[in-house]
């Protein structure tokens, strides 16, 4: 297992390099002027000063040098200064907002996994009944409903009209200590974020379970007289969980994207909202850094999924030892 982790972690910088190269190429071929972004969108910057900054980032050099200089800056953790963060370094801004997004995504992931499991199993167990039909139909509606619409309606109904929950923000503005994120504030955005993934995951659990239930070893268990519930939970489910685990990585990647919309609707001070602000402010240094951060997170998420996969399935562990 250790070798697997080490191998994957070694590949991570290569992947990040590839992603950085891709964004570099895109920036080069696009009509967008990156110098403006790195200098800051001010009209009153003198020509000499612009040249100074351009030189620091290698914009006045041939493309290979430019790329090399850019990569070496990135490797040292210097992502440039952010326009939307008052000229402060990009890296610091991202780390300061990371926690808020992690909390949101972690909670949403938990809801997706638990809820998906529970309802997927129940739907598989009660297959063919009205309950199953209801779960499936609701899931189909959910997958087709745009997340920003659901979020808007949720904010409106629960926070504004019914007044059950706060209307946005991560904590009570009056609180003395800002370190915390309170449950009251996180619950609604967390649920809305979970809803972006929940439906297809539930359907997946259900469908995979149904397939597994047709397999020989399950039939054998049934033939032995083991009750249906036990068959489901002890024989079918663990096998279905193996592909399920690899999907955690996909879920995570999608949830990261979902924060873009959810955080902006609920005013949640995390990386999603930062990404949106950066896009609206044409803050290229910030966007590039966020792209790289997201790529890194996805790779790590997949690694985590693979590790879990091996933990849970002894056959694979044996094979990879």
């Amino acid at each position, binding site marked *: 297992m250790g070798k697997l982790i080490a191998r994957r972690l070694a590949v991570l910088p290569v*992947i990040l390099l*590839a*992603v950085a190269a*891709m*964004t570099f190429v*895109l*920036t080069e071929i*696009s*009509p*967008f002027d990156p110098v403006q972004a790195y200098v800051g969108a001010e009209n009153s910057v003198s020509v000499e000063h612009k040249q100074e900054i351009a030189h620091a980032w290698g914009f006045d050099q041939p493309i290979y040098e430019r790329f090399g200089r850019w990569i070496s800056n990135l490797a040292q953790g210097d992502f440039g200064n952010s326009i939307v963060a008052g000229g402060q370094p990009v890296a610091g801004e991202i780390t300061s907002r990371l926690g808020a997004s992690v909390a949101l995504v972690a909670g949403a992931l938990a809801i997706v996994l638990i809820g998906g499991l529970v309802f997927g199993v129940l739907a598989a167990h009660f297959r063919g009944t009205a309950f199953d039909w209801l779960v499936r139909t609701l899931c*189909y*509606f959910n*997958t*087709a*409903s*745009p*997340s*920003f*619409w*659901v979020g*808007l*309606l949720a904010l*409106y109904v629960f926070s*504004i009209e019914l007044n059950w929950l706060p209307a946005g923000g991560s904590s009570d503005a009056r609180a003395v200590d800002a370190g915390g994120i309170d449950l009251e504030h996180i619950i609604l955005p967390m649920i809305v974020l979970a809803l972006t993934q929940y439906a*297809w995951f539930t359907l997946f659990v259900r*469908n995979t379970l149904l397939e597994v239930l047709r397999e020989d070893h399950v039939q054998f268990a049934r033939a032995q007289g083991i009750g249906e519930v036990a068959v489901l939970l002890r024989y079918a489910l663990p096998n279905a969980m193996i592909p399920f685990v690899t999907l955690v990585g*996909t879920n995570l*990647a*999608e949830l*990261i*994207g*979902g924060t*873009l*919309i959810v955080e*902006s609707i609920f005013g949640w001070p995390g990386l999603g909202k930062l*990404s*949106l602000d950066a*896009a*609206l402010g*044409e803050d*290229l240094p910030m*966007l*590039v850094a*966020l*792209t790289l951060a*997201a*790529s890194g997170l*996805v*790779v790590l998420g997949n690694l985590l999924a693979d590790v879990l996969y091996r933990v849970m399935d002894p056959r694979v562990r044996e094979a990879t030892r």
Partner: protein
Amino acid sequence: MSAGAVARSTQPGRDRALRMADAFAHWPLSVRIAATVLGLLMVAAVGMDIVAPLDNRSVDLDAVLHAPSTAHLMGTDEVGRDLLARVLHGVRISLTIAVAAAFGAVAVGTLVGVLAGTMGGKVDAVVMRATDVFASQNHLLFGILLLVLFRPALGGAAAVMLAVALTHWPSLARIVRGELMSVRERPFVAAAVGGGAGRMRLVRRHYLPHLMPAIGLAFVLTVPHAIFHESAYSFLGLGLPPHQASLGNILSDGQRSLLAGGWWLALFPGLAILAASMTIGTLAEYWREHLHPRWRSELEL
């Protein structure tokens, strides 16, 4: 119609219509509902464009934010425009852009997939690694990066199409490549190669026709995603210009007026997106069940 296969019908149009109606009747209920709703939506959207073309100047500052009534079935918006009319226009605009965007994604994906599949070897490896890099990107985040880079020059609509195309092509490329791999194994390919067919000819005359159903299905499956992305980008302010009636724009405009009593502004545009997405998705899923059941996980875009 006679039993002889050679006999030609005297009314081919009517026969085709009858056959289609027959097929329709055999579809499951959900699929029939989906097809009907979609059909109605498209007729209404196109019809609205003919009967009352989108006119941003039809503001009516005396009718600001009226709730749904017999005069305005979906109410009016913050400058007094009829919401139903705007939503129908929005359906047309959003669908048009989404279809074009999906087409772009499929075009790029097919190109790359065919390239990798026919060239094989090192080219294949390099191309697939590049595909992996693109595939690892989160769609929305990468999409907004592309929009920032290209929107000022290309304009909202073209930039959105580009963003959707560049974020969705990887899975399509993988599918096309996979299909191509399996087509390559078929005996008629060996026969064509033996007959001296060059690569391009192989592609054009032998591969592509067999790939078409798969490509077509992939295209239709991509459209709901494109609808979501276009309206999401527009909602966030990075897509179509704000006065254009994209469903995302209408929702975004309506967002400000929610508390001034405009719940209809949030509800109806979203319902339209839902309806368009769901109907197309249902039809596409049904087609997939028929054609390619094993695609289940690949096309989770």
